[in-house]
């Protein structure tokens, strides 16, 4: 398992959200939903997703299944891989223990000033 080389606020926000949705059994987390939930910009969120997917292998993406009558660009849903679950638990235990105590709760972005807990 490759650990994160650099842990930033947006990285923790996205990871916490991914872990929360994984714990809740929800598998419909896509880019726009992450942006809305974390209140982070698109480039920031996609930068983190790139790191998690390509560099670390903690998440995997799957395309939205469209009905035949649907058209247009498809969404891509992200879920934690088993490696990602273990990694996210380790990182969150260290940096945001509150996220592990109440998995599956309604996720809210952490306050950005003092600490991330």
């Amino acid at each position, binding site marked *: 398992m490759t650990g994160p080389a650099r842990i930033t606020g947006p990285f923790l926000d996205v990871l916490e959200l991914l872990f929360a949705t994984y714990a809740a059994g929800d598998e419909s987390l*896509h*880019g*726009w939903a992450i*942006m809305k939930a974390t209140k982070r*910009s*698109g*480039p920031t969120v*996609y*930068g983190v997703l790139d790191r998690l997917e*390509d560099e670390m292998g903690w998440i995997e993406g799957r395309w*939205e299944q469209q009905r035949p009558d649907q058209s*247009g*660009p*498809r*969404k*891509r849903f992200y879920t934690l891989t088993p490696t990602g679950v273990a990694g996210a638990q380790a990182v969150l235990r260290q940096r945001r223990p509150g996220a592990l105590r109440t998995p599956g709760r309604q996720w809210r972005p952490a306050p950005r000033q003092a600490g991330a807990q």
Partner: protein
Amino acid sequence: MSAILLGILATVIADQLCATFPSLALKLARWSAACRYAGNPAKAELRAEELEALIEQRPGGLLKLSTALGLAIAALATASRRALGKNPVITIARATGRAIVMGAAVIAAVAVAIWYLYCSLCLLVGGAVMFAAVAGLTVGAIAGAIDRSLGAYLGWSAAAAVAIWWTITWLPRLRRRPPRRTRRTQSERRLRSPRNLTRR
């Protein structure tokens, strides 16, 4: 009457302009994905579709365009960092040229967005501004069709709109020179003196 007609026309044109924003935003999103993942076409294609879906979910044309601009600027920054980080000495000239072209395209897109806002605010002023915007977009569309690039479309749109607007706004002012001072006769001077004017 003409002001009302101009107002209606301007509103229709503004509506049409707004209608072009979503497609412009989609193109910009696709371009930013290609720019960000330049060395990985498969990833670029994947991300392009995803970003297009993201743009589709944003409400309103202006919001779509602003999101796409944000993505494009970030992609530009990433591409520049990557190009400069690999081999600064060799790639710096190439990267500079590319950055100038890309930067110009992004700046032009921002200019068009600001232009649209400005035009919307100036609806009451008259049709001249809107005419400049529409003429600029037409020139840009032709340039984009010839060059087949977003940069040409945006750059020429902004340049033509600004040029036309400047011509319309400033040409009449330049022509409106102060009248020459002619020598007045004694009787004229007497007639125009403040004492006589007040007496009337």
